């Protein structure tokens, strides 16, 4: 641990703690998840950076969306994301989460994930290798340091819009809005 880091620790312990204790939800969407096991086991050992998978959304602060997202999965992703305690960070895996990738014209996959939940960073590739995950993690550190990993704040701020988008594709949702939604209805009406 170098000197700079030590100074940062002293200055903002919480932020450092968030950085070095990234607990990822066990959540497998597409093919990308195949890259996660090597990442966390002996070959790459993500735990040395504090990155470990956790069982429930409640305990996590990192959401790796590993690959294409079908409509059905989207519902679960949104629910899981909403249940994670703040602050929380999301990383999209591969092209599919960016623009749909090879599934761009599929009838059942969404193309652009950040229409539905805020994404703090993407890893390009199809598929990205474990090393790329580490790159993403270090990049996320930087973002956290600079307070730029603020997806959860954006979500809260623009919840109405996100909710409207979600409802557009998912139709009626089983759970009520988690934040105030008077605006959301207004937006949908305007759009409709």
């Amino acid at each position, binding site marked *: 641990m170098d000197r700079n880091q030590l100074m940062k620790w002293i200055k903002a312990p919480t932020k450092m703690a968030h950085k070095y*204790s990234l607990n990822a939800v066990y959540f497998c969407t597409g093919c990308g998840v195949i890259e996660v096991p090597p990442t966390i086991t002996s070959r790459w050992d993500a735990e040395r950076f504090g990155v470990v998978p956790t*069982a429930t959304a409640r305990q996590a602060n990192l959401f790796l969306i590993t690959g294409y997202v079908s409509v059905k999965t989207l519902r679960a992703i949104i629910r899981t994301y909403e249940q994670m305690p703040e602050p929380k960070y999301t990383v999209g895996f591969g092209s599919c989460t960016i623009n749909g990738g090879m599934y761009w014209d599929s009838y059942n996959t969404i193309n652009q994930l950040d229409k539905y939940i805020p994404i703090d960073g993407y890893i390009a590739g199809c598929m990205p290798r474990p090393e790329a995950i580490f790159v993403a993690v270090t990049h996320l550190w930087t973002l956290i340091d600079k307070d730029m990993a603020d997806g959860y704040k954006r979500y809260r701020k623009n919840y109405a819009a996100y909710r409207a988008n979600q409802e557009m594709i998912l139709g009626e949702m089983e759970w009520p809005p988690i934040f105030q939604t008077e605006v959301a209805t207004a937006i949908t009406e305007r759009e409709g």
Partner: protein
Amino acid sequence: MRILWFVLSPLMALAVGLFFLGLSRRFMARIQWRVGPPLYQPLIDILRQFTQKSVSHGPLFDLGVVLSLASSFIVVLFMPLGGTAPLSSSGGLLAVLYLMLLGPLGIALSGGEAANPNVSIGISRKLILAVGYEVPFLMIVLALMTYYGTISIGEIVAAQRESASAIASFPLVFSGIAYLLILPAMLGVRPFEVVGAAQEISSGPAAEYGGPYLALATIQHGLTMFIGISLFVNLLWGGASNPVVFFLKMLVVFAFGFWVNAAFPRLRVEQAVRYLWRWPTLIAFVGLILVATIGR
């Protein structure tokens, strides 16, 4: 001095418990040919969790966790950690046995209010497993109390200091072996880890815990490990005259426990109970019979 211990021993337990948590991760990583996280990783985790904004399912949800952790601290006050126990004259080992219940019970009540079936399943498993290891554990404890004719931990430690430590004396050696056999179950590590099976029931009782709740639960877990190991050291290995020796003895026991953790796969809860009610119980029972018949 005693007042000092009131403050010192919980802190020491906290430190050692967290250290054990970190050490265990590191230890496991090394066994699995990994680098592993730094030793202070649990501290980072707890700090992170403390500052996360979680959800609460109701007053009991909060209170249960607090109760659980507080009771663990109280148990620590009954332990002579290489000195005198702060609460030595308040019910002795019997009170400890009861207070040890409150940890799981607090978590169980709190988790119950979370209304999550994963939690319920985890608690059900936890209680079943507890019944499993309590059979040999009670036999061990009773053998000790009967052998030394006291219910006070301090007196048991003192008696061992006069003669040999319990695990090295004849009838109690059975109890010692039995204790080692159930130690992983008491610490809640593999192969008896089915309570919080992460992949299966989303970490069981802790499934709804996030943020500060998780932090307290983690500390509680560390303290449970501390208590389980320190009970062994106190009751069977003669305690220690100063905290450092005590800590070293605990480290040895800890190493044994985590060797088992690393080496064995997880048991289903029936398998676990079946194991616990077979060998450890048999050995503890033999020990108890010998103590009851031969005596001191």
